[in-house]
């Protein structure tokens, strides 16, 4: 189970926190405490395994176990939260079963669209391809992340070397934890700056944009059928309004009632409600108590 997803869930629980000891779900920060305790336990095991007198084989095994623990802790960072949501696996399976991930020319989404619903079929094909591309890019990100964690864990184990036999106090554990974070961030920075990572991230975002575009187009079809306003229609109206505003702004001032220059004043319709102004939180345009003009000293 990935920590980040649990942390997210834990934060969501903060909206309805419970006092410690209350029945039900753990308090919001429990997941962090849990992570810290697991870290401390793994660190203790590692130190025991590396203690003076341990055989080379047991030391190597302790290092590997510890390294694996660290990697497991963060393994699913690039697994998107919705990947574990109901329906996601089916959606991917559907996409692959219909050919978006299969060989060319063999499945429904690789065939030319025909007939009355041709446009709709093509839209679904494009959506399926985008879904496949997102999945593929996400796997590349996940691989890079996994490599990063391996590198970070390896650097951390090397940095610890043979730990001294001093007792592992809470303060010492925190210091070790901070060292781990340093190692992890350093390894991640190297990955995050790499071409491979930038390419995978861009591919993921770009495929997501395509999927959203096709999904929106599908939603618009339904909106039209139900005679609901579509985003395109609203955008068109907004554009028209914008052009009109620009034309009004560009119109030369001709009468005394028009401002030839200077900023606009707040229209009445945009002023804060009287109740808000009375509360002193959102005041309307102030009664201008002029200060004497200040000049350059």
């Amino acid at each position, binding site marked *: 189970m990935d*920590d*980040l997803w649990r*942390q997210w869930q834990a934060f969501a629980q903060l909206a309805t*926190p419970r*006092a*410690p000891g209350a029945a039900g779900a753990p*308090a919001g*920060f*429990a997941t*962090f*405490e849990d*992570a*810290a305790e697991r870290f401390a336990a793994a660190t203790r095991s590692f130190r025991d395994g590396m203690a003076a007198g341990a055989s080379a084989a047991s030391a190597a095994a302790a290092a590997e176990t510890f390294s694996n623990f660290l990697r497991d802790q*963060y393994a699913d*960072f690039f697994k998107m939260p919705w990947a574990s949501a109901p329906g996601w696996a089916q959606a991917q399976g559907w996409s692959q079963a219909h050919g978006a991930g299969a060989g060319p020319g063999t499945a429904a989404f690789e065939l030319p669209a025909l007939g009355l619903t041709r446009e709709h079929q093509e839209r679904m094909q494009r959506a399926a391809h985008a879904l496949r591309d997102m999945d593929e890019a996400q796997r590349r990100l996940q691989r890079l992340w996994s490599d990063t964690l391996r590198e970070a864990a390896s650097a951390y184990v090397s940095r610890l070397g043979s730990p001294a036999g001093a007792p592992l106090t*809470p303060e010492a554990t*925190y210091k070790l*934890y*901070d060292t781990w*974070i340093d190692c*992890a*961030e350093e390894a*991640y*920075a190297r990955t*995050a*700056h790499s071409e491979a990572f*930038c*390419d995978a*991230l*861009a591919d993921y*975002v*770009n495929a997501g*944009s*395509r999927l*959203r575009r096709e999904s*929106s187009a599908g939603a618009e079809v339904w909106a039209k059928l139900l005679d609901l306003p579509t*985003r395109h229609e*609203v*955008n068109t109206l*907004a*554009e028209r309004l*914008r052009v009109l505003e620009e034309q009004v702004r560009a119109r030369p001032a001709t009468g005394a009632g028009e401002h030839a220059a*200077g*900023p*606009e*004043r*707040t229209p009445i319709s*945009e002023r804060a409600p009287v109740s808000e102004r009375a509360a002193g939180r*959102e*005041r*309307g*345009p*102030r009664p*201008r108590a002029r*200060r004497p*003009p*200040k*000049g*350059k*000293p």
Partner: protein
Amino acid sequence: MMSPNLWSALAAARHCVAGCSAKEEVWRKGKLRLYRYRSIAKPAATPPLLIVYALVNRPYMMDLQEDRSLIRGLLTQGLDVYLIDWGYPDGADRFTTLSDYIEDQLGGAVQTILQDQGLDALNLLGVCQGGVFSLCYAALHPEHVRNLVTMVTPVDFHTRADLLSKWVRKIDVEAWVANGNVSGDTLNQLFLSLMPFRLTQQKYLELLRGEADAPRIENFMRVEQWIFDSPDQAGAAFREFVVWMYQENRLARNCLKLAGRAVDLAPLKLPILNLIGKRDHLVPPASSAALQRLVGSRDFTTLELDLGHIGMYVSARAQREVPPAIAAWLAAR
């Protein structure tokens, strides 16, 4: 195990709100609000200072709490401080462009202040993306800006350390934005991904391992509130900013145009104070430092502090050093 005391302190801090200095709204346009802060010290003999914050977070970070407030520090120095709050764009703002923000909104705020105070020019303090806006405005209207202060402001978007820039360079921004806005949550996810181990785990463990000290926890909660109180970004302006700055680096390459007018930094001769955070992970120091070679100003001061991006305006060290430095620099000009 989290102590009951810590739990109580956290629970008590849930509702603490940011913002400590008295202010009044003096102008608004659309969602923009222009605030003027009430003076708390003997007025300094300098023109008013307009703070231009970024679009990507809320400007109350400038005035978080009494001991962490750049604005309060500036007021203490006697400065007459104004602040632009860009508001929360919604779907109706999706076609708002950079030109709208800079020429109409920032420009309108400047005109309001100048008219009210009977001045020809004021001082501008641009923070992060707001620094880019301030630079553009100053380049287009140098007659209205007496002195310019840029704080953690990206100028060269193609420096080696700029991870955000590397990430977005291959993204199809047209498709990403489409005709909509970009959600604040998406941007936050991006920012967290810059340092995922520190920002998604270590900082919370640090919170838990400290004392159940109310001021410390309230400070943490206010910053936490600010970090995730991220407005959506107006689609058109976001697209322009990412393509023109991050992808094409137009500001540094001197080929930026706004509403058909060239934003040329070379003729900019006004005094400039450039504040740089040496440990800034969002705006690499080299990105900000590039400003000096692009402007024509001979009165150019760089102040590098050993701080991060956010530390530049909320750290204890920043509180001690930044407001007096800005006030002294302005007073000398």
